[in-house]
């Protein structure tokens, strides 16, 4: 499990008074404030975030320690991370995408099938995209009780019982 989650990125300066354009990757964009203070990937820079408005494709925000347009411009492209433990706890059978990605997938007999590469949702339920050494292309596994009876985050594995014709 990753200890840091990427929750946003700085798209550039907004105006001339040190505000930034913030791209939020959260399900509800404004929730990025709840995970502050945010840090850079290497952890050397930390920012508290105050959202000042909404713009096309993002938010405008004021970051602590960023007082000028030049300072805001210098941060362009910086990805912002929050510690995993700051994300709220979820009820049973709900999981963060970030927790599922990277888990090992085994079938009910214990044979490794691959690893979770991504989680997708096209409107018909969540799908786990599985990539493995024995697979020519990625396989999409429906994230249902039937197809995925066990999710063990501590052990870092998923037990899958895929329907016929999937693998």
């Amino acid at each position, binding site marked *: 499990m990753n200890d840091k*989650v*990427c*929750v*946003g990125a700085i798209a550039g300066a907004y105006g001339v008074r040190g505000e930034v354009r913030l791209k*939020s*990757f*959260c*399900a509800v964009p404004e*929730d990025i404030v709840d*995970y502050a203070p945010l840090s850079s990937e290497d952890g050397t820079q930390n920012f508290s975030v105050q959202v000042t408005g909404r713009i096309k494709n993002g938010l405008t925000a004021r970051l602590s320690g960023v007082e000028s347009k030049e300072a805001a411009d210098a941060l362009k492209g910086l990805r912002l991370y929050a510690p995993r433990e700051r*994300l709220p706890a*979820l009820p049973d*059978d*709900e*999981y*963060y*995408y*970030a927790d*599922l*990605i990277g888990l090992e997938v085994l079938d009910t007999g214990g044979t490794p099938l691959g690893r979770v590469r*991504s*989680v*997708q*949702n*096209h*409107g*018909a*339920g*969540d*799908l786990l995209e599985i990539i493995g050494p024995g697979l020519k*292309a*990625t396989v*999409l*596994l*429906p*994230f*249902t*009780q*039937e197809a*995925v009876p066990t*999710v063990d985050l501590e052990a870092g594995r998923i037990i899958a019982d895929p*329907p*016929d*014709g*999937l693998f």
Partner: protein
Amino acid sequence: MARSVWKGPFVDAYVLKKAEAARDSGRKEVIKIWSRRSTILPQFVGLTFGVYNGQKHIPVNVTEDMIGQKFGEYSPTRTYYGHAADKKAKRK
């Protein structure tokens, strides 16, 4: 222009056949189809279709609220990998 009501919903005949066969067999399987234009009918609820998107078959678990839509709506032809951030998956 909307489809005339007297014609009924359009479904490719082979989709109906495959769905009926899968329902009769009672086996848990993905029904591979290429017909993205077929309408989702009430008798498809509970079945899992693998809807072709030009590259691979995307599993689509049919539920009641999908009736009347087309299969292709649930099988996008372009994949966008966004960031996981705080997005949640619910096991149904």
